[in-house]
């Protein structure tokens, strides 16, 4: 199945991004394809290159980056939500890209299922 993922909460404060990551990994292991992960609301913070968690903690941003690289997942950060929150190309982690909300609607159209992770 072709899946789209929407993440509406930031890393560490909220479990949404963790659950989405574990879901994506499990889905890929079962043979499904993740078409795109779209980061919206505070979810845009999952793309900050400046993120530095303590060494004994999971690195949520880099974990997404690696999963995307290994499985060709399109990581899209909403431009309007990002600009509001100070996420720009200069502090965007490699592997993510900033684009418009149209990409979210398109994910809904193109995917067999769009799964939302949020509050």
């Amino acid at each position: 199945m072709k899946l789209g993922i929407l993440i509406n909460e930031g890393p560490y404060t909220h479990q949404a991004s963790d659950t989405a990551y574990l879901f994506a990994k499990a889905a890929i292991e079962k043979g499904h394809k993740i078409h795109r992960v779209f980061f919206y609301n505070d979810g845009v913070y999952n793309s900050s290159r400046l993120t530095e968690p303590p060494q004994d903690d999971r690195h949520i941003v880099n974990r997404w980056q690696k999963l995307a690289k290994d499985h060709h997942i399109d990581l899209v950060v909403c431009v309007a939500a990002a600009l509001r929150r100070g996420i720009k190309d200069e502090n965007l982690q490699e592997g993510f890209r900033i684009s418009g909300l149209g990409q979210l609607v398109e994910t809904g159209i193109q995917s067999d299922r769009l799964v939302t992770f949020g509050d």
Partner: protein
Amino acid sequence: MTEATGGIEMEEDTGGKVKKFLYINRKAPYGTIYALESLEVVLISAAFDQDVSLAFLDDGVYQVVKGQHTKPIDVKNFSPTYRALEGYDIEKLYVEKESMEARGLKEEDFIVPVKVINTAEMADLMQSQDVIMSF
């Protein structure tokens, strides 16, 4: 709605598919950004010629209440935008009856025409959709 897209050109690669999109709004219009950012997605989806519906449940029913006055909290009152949805052919707005009544609201308290449906009908509505986004 260049504000939401940041002026970036959208690739409308929809392959001519029309899906039923339902946007579920559960939170009060102010206090958190969810209502506003939900509305921004709704407006964008209009550009994709999809079959769009909106549902208001829980405190989300306050989003479409008339007479919002936000000046004292220094936040933009975006409720008039709901009235503009008609111009984008988004006319299917549903309010859950139980949520409305629990908050002492009536059908005439809303800024736009809405269809009031009960929880069971809301479940049927959700069942009939292809894509549901909840904010």
